[in-house]
């Protein structure tokens, strides 16, 4: 799959050279082609935020924030036989979000270069034009491998709400619900904002899990405090979650360019970690 992404980029680059008639015989001439024809900037589509370099950088790392920073990955990685299997998340993000996006942007820029009126963002036709049936298979497999663990996680979440239902039934239900929702362009075309939003919602919990597991032993704080005390709710975690979300929403609502939805997760993570540590220290004061 990774190599097919690379193939998209190589084919797209060759086609760009052909349609522009550019002479590419050195790195500098390749760079010139890139800056003048492929990644030349421009106005965003109506209703969409203009993506800068920083948007792409942040979004590449935080697009699947719910899974990686929000720790949803643990639903699958709990089965890992070795700790370094966690590196799969990082490598997947780097290859999937940097290399694949670069290749996809070359193909999309080529489509716009050939027909500026054709602004359709359709991965299937783009992949098919560059790599034929193998390209189509790659798109389907890429979607399938991303969707599988996510539907599994959603099934686990539904099962937590309805423990008497079988995991098979709730996972099928989650898959059908997501498939049905995906049929509506109004939802599918809002994917970027939606992904950023639900990542933001889960991010504070990821910070809580991280602090509890890695930082608490160093600060001599008790891990799994609610379980230890038999509490039904850990208010330090609850407050860290709610306060962080409130602060992040306020920052986004402020309209400051530095606090767009795509950026607030980074300061938000530190806010959540800080609140959880401070409140836990207060809660555990006087305890051995």
């Amino acid at each position, binding site marked *: 799959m990774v190599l097919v992404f690379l193939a998209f980029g190589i*084919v797209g680059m060759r086609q760009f050279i052909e349609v522009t008639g550019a002479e590419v015989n050195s790195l500098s001439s390749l760079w010139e082609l890139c800056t003048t024809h492929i990644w030349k900037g421009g106005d965003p589509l109506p209703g969409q935020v203009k993506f800068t370099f920083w948007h792409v950088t942040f979004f590449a790392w935080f697009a699947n924030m719910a899974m990686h920073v929000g720790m949803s990955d643990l639903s699958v990685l709990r089965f890992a036989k070795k700790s370094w299997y966690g590196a799969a998340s990082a490598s997947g993000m780097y290859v999937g979000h940097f290399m694949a996006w670069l290749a996809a942007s070359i193909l999309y820029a080529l489509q716009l270069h050939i027909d500026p009126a054709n602004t359709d963002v359709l991965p299937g036709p783009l992949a098919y034009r560059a790599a034929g049936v193998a*390209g189509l298979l790659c798109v389907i497999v890429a979607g399938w491998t991303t969707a599988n663990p996510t539907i599994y996680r959603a099934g686990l979440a539904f099962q937590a709400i309805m423990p008497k239902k079988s995991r098979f039934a709730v996972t099928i239900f989650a898959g059908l619900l997501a498939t049905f929702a995906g049929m509506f362009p109004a939802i599918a075309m809002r994917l970027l904002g939606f992904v950023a939003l639900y990542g933001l919602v889960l991010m504070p919990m990821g910070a809580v899990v991280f602090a509890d597991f890695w930082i608490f032993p160093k600060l001599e704080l008790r891990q799994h405090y609610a379980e230890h005390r038999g509490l039904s709710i850990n208010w330090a975690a609850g407050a860290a979650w709610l306060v962080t979300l409130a602060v992040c929403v306020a920052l986004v609502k402020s309209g400051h360019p530095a606090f767009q939805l795509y950026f607030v997760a980074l300061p938000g993570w530190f806010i959540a970690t800080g609140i959880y540590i401070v409140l836990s220290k207060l809660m555990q004061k006087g305890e051995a």
Partner: protein
Amino acid sequence: MKKIAETVSYLALALVVVAPSLFYAEKITLEASKQLLLLATIVWFASTPLWMGRKREG
């Protein structure tokens, strides 16, 4: 047998990069590149389950 399947898998992977590279170098057409990519994909999916995730012989 597994060693052969593993070698064939890696050759198929190499072909996924070689085919578009040949197109880039104007040695083959885009259609030929697409056909080679499909061939490489089929060979990869056919040969890889024979060795990946299985214990080594001997």
